[in-house]
């Protein structure tokens, strides 16, 4: 048995699918265990500290690995059997070192989803595949007014991934930056826009984590979320929901891919098998099976078959439209932050909570949080990443 210890595919159905559809094809039997970050991290830390362990392969998001970098085995020697892996992701997998700390495993991004009923209220002349934030706000305003309540949904709950929205969508769309222009005037405008949007956002959003649920119950009609967290809505009622790209701002249509990877801890009981399993995860067939199971897209070049689940078809099209848009402004996951990744995210979350939820003064909050951000960047010494211009030394917060 190889123990595959993962923070991904946690919902029970996905876990089950991973076991039955993805990993059953491997030559060895694999024990796939998905858990919350808390137990996941605690367990692997304990094994590393104890110097022995049972975990063979780790699966996690880019951010999950940052703290563990020192104890992950270099995977550059893994024989991938000729599959070509997305370069950017492979680069991210080095975690700022010379070694391949993790292999990219699957990717996803955030898109918008809407109930078809909502389309009737689209503002005059707006193209759903090329929305701007202003149009989105106008749309939501009409919806709220016409249907008697806010209909926009945003995953701002404790398990929601809201920080990625601010980092990869809101900031790039308004400031063409994630870090550098954190407290710029443009940023202030971005937050004000977001506040405007928030007025038409379902107030219960602060406990939402997976927008598919609220879409299905029709608590919200339009939502922003991770593709994997919208999948259930598309799969259950493919005819009722549409997917479309995130909106654009003055500096383009900011968006951000999310990447999950697999890594081998130095305490893995059987290094060879672990590496073999890592390689197996990158096989095109496995990648397609994974897509079916988890709605995370492949990180290797493959031809998708036609019989993919509805969610894949629908969100795949939206992703294509988003990345292929003229004003596309892709950003990258934070890099080189080490174990400060969590605090980095917290800066954005705090800013959101203070400005939007607590209603504090935008300027003051930005100034305040910029200090925190700067401290983090300096402590980590991480250079800037896209869409910020590469920097010498720590990425500056202007």
């Amino acid at each position, binding site marked *: 048995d190889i123990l595959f210890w993962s923070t991904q595919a946690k919902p029970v159905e996905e876990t089950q699918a991973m076991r039955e559809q993805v990993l059953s094809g491997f030559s060895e039997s694999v024990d796939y265990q998905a858990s*919350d*970050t*808390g137990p996941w*991290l605690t367990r692997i830390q304990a094994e590393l500290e104890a110097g022995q362990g049972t975990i063979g392969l780790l699966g996690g998001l880019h951010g999950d690995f940052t*703290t563990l970098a020192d104890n992950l085995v270099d995977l550059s020697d893994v024989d991938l059997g000729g599959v070509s892996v997305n370069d950017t992701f492979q680069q991210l997998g080095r975690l700022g070192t010379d070694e391949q700390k993790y292999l990219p495993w699957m990717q996803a991004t955030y898109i918008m989803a809407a109930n078809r009923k909502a389309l009737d209220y689209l503002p005059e002349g707006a193209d759903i595949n090329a929305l701007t934030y202003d149009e989105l706000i106008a749309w939501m305003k009409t919806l709220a007014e016409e249907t*008697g*309540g806010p209909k926009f949904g945003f995953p*701002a*709950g*404790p398990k929601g991934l809201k920080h990625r929205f601010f980092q990869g969508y809101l900031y790039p769309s308004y400031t063409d930056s994630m870090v550098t222009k954190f407290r710029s005037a443009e940023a202030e405008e971005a937050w004000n826009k977001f506040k405007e949007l928030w007025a038409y956002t*379902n*107030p*219960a*959003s*602060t*406990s*939402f984590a997976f927008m598919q649920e*609220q879409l299905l*119950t*029709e*608590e919200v009609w339009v939502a922003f979320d991770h593709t994997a967290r919208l999948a259930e809505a598309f799969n259950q009622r493919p005819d009722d929901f549409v997917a479309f790209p995130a909106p654009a701002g003055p500096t383009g249509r900011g968006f951000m891919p999310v990447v999950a990877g697999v890594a081998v801890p130095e305490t893995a009981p059987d290094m060879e098998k672990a590496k073999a399993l890592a390689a197996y995860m990158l096989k095109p067939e496995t990648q397609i099976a994974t897509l079916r199971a988890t709605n995370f897209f492949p990180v290797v070049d493959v031809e998708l078959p036609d019989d993919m689940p509805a969610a894949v078809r629908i969100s795949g099209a939206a992703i294509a439209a988003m990345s292929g848009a003229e004003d596309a402004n892709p950003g990258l996951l934070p890099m080189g932050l080490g*174990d400060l*990744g*969590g*605090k980095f*995210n*917290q800066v954005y979350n*705090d800013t959101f*909570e*203070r400005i939007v*939820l607590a209603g504090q003064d935008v300027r003051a909050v930005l100034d305040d949080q910029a200090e925190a951000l700067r401290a983090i960047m300096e402590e980590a010494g991480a250079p800037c990443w896209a869409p910020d211009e590469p920097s010498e030394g720590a990425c500056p917060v202007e």
Partner: protein
Amino acid sequence: MEQRSLPYLLLLPATLFLCVFFIYPFLLVAWQAVSQDGSFTLEHFRTMADHWKFSTAFWNTILLAMAVVPLQLALALLMATLVTRMGAGRDVILYIWTIPLGISDLAAGIIWLAIFEQTGFLNSILSSLGLIDQPTTWLGYQDKATIFIAVVLAELWRATAIVLVILVAGMGLIPKEYYEAAEVFGAGPWKRFVRITLPLLRPSIQTALILRTILAFEVFAVVAALGGTNLPVLMGETYVWQFDLQDRHVAAAYALVILAISIAFTLVFLRTLRVPKEARI
């Protein structure tokens, strides 16, 4: 005489157990709260206290405990009294009332969220009764008060059974002759409750209060389910620092704060509800 050493002997297994499996790891964690790279510092406490959420989380936790625990005690006392006055069917009722005992906070959070959600049962009832035509939002970020009430209700539902069983077990040990004497000397049901049940139940009440208060300071799952990020509590913040922010030092500092207020309240209960040795049964 064996009298002297016996209590220590009786405590020995539990003590040894706790030393190995609690005190030792606890000391390791506690050390993290007050050290940085091996040297003593209060920096982490400062970081914690300076964080803008700290005082909100702190007061939310205290307020929740202050609201939930007394209500639970009152409800459990009511239930226990009803149970003791019941004839046939007592077992069944008691079983029903202790059902929530078996329900984890995780499950309780799910159930209560399903009730208070916008498309949840509460709105379903209200709308089928025609009281509302649009689902009302109960748990929105502006509805701090409703969230608070919802959390209190859920906690009340989930964790009153613990108090109930402690009290029922305690009441079972009060000799009925005392009630009879009180009755003859003019005490009505209420007076009997206040003058006989409550004082004689003091050890049980003390136990229930201490345990419940400590647990109340650790509320998390239900609050997170119902309140999301709107109702930060200490335990939630501890999680955030430990796992999201990956700062074990500050997380440990939070944990010590929880520990400190728990012990403070415990001491208060131990003091105020102490039964003098000579006044025991």
